[in-house]
């Protein structure tokens, strides 16, 4: 059984990077797949990778992570200005991040506007 846990921005937005990462890793280590509202900053993502590496052992194999950017890159000039303004106001709240334990999620494919999530079972079926 797969468990998805939605984490709204309001739940992590006020946390510092360290506490935010601790919280995300704690949920992932409970074998849950996180749907996080918003995106992590680049330094938070590298810190998440670093912390993940520190915790890898025989049981915990690491994480799979992917984010969905809701901003289309091929839009008109006025739309781009609008996006810049919205991003300025909303900050890292825009978009969606999926983080899950590597023991459950074998692969996440982004192409680039949709996300496909392959679990251990779906990968076996593909073969």
């Amino acid at each position: 059984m797969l468990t998805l846990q939605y984490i709204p921005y309001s739940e992590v937005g006020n946390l510092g990077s360290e506490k935010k990462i601790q919280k995300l890793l704690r949920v992932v280590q409970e074998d849950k797949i996180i749907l996080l509202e918003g995106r992590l900053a680049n330094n938070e993502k590298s810190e998440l990778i670093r912390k993940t590496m520190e915790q890898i052992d025989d049981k915990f194999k690491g994480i799979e992570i992917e984010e969905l950017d809701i901003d289309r890159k091929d839009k008109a000039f006025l739309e781009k200005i609008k996006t810049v303004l919205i991003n300025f106001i909303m900050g890292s709240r825009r978009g969606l991040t999926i983080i899950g334990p590597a023991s459950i999620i074998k692969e996440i494919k982004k192409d680039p506007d949709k996300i496909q999530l392959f679990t251990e079972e779906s990968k076996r079926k593909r073969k």
Partner: protein
Amino acid sequence: MGIFGNFLKKFLKALFAKKGNVKLGLYGPPNGGKTTLANKITMDWLGEEMGSVSPIAHETREIQIKEQVTIKSKGKELTFSLVDTPGIATKIDFEDFIKAGLEEKEAKTRAKEATKGVIDAIKWLDDMDAVVIVLDATKDPYSQVNITIIGNLEARKIPVLIVANKVDLKKADIKKVQAAFPQYDVIGISAKYGTNVDNFYESLFKITNK
């Protein structure tokens, strides 16, 4: 990092600064061909290899440095310290190494060393003057590892060149890599066979402003 670690880092930094060298890092996911490229560079300009390569991921698990590499192109000269880094990954499973043919003990040791290697590679990002991201052109370029490395370099204003490696393979798709990172120069090469490496060397002058 402890007091000794900080001192060592400052000492090494001062040592490099004295020599006026550019620190050129090779970064990317595991098995992209970083060490194959490092070997190509050092064979071409120093006549010696830098590290061992393997089809099993995470062969490079420690930072490798080759100092005073001087390349020449069109009358110009560039000297740098070449830093080959362990592949950055979000997961490391010792069972993958067992499937690749290693004994359990060896696989577990490799996994442990690989996790440390990833941590070191991330730490060293701050120390680079320019970075070559080595990607396997047959693989999906839209991975969070790639995006995270490039995003961190961008935030630190460190110049980046993207190499789409393994163009000798049929599945290689340079255009897909270019589409994923349109703001960067992408050079398609085969580090193994030396395809297009002259263009790669020329691009190194560009990212280091030489």
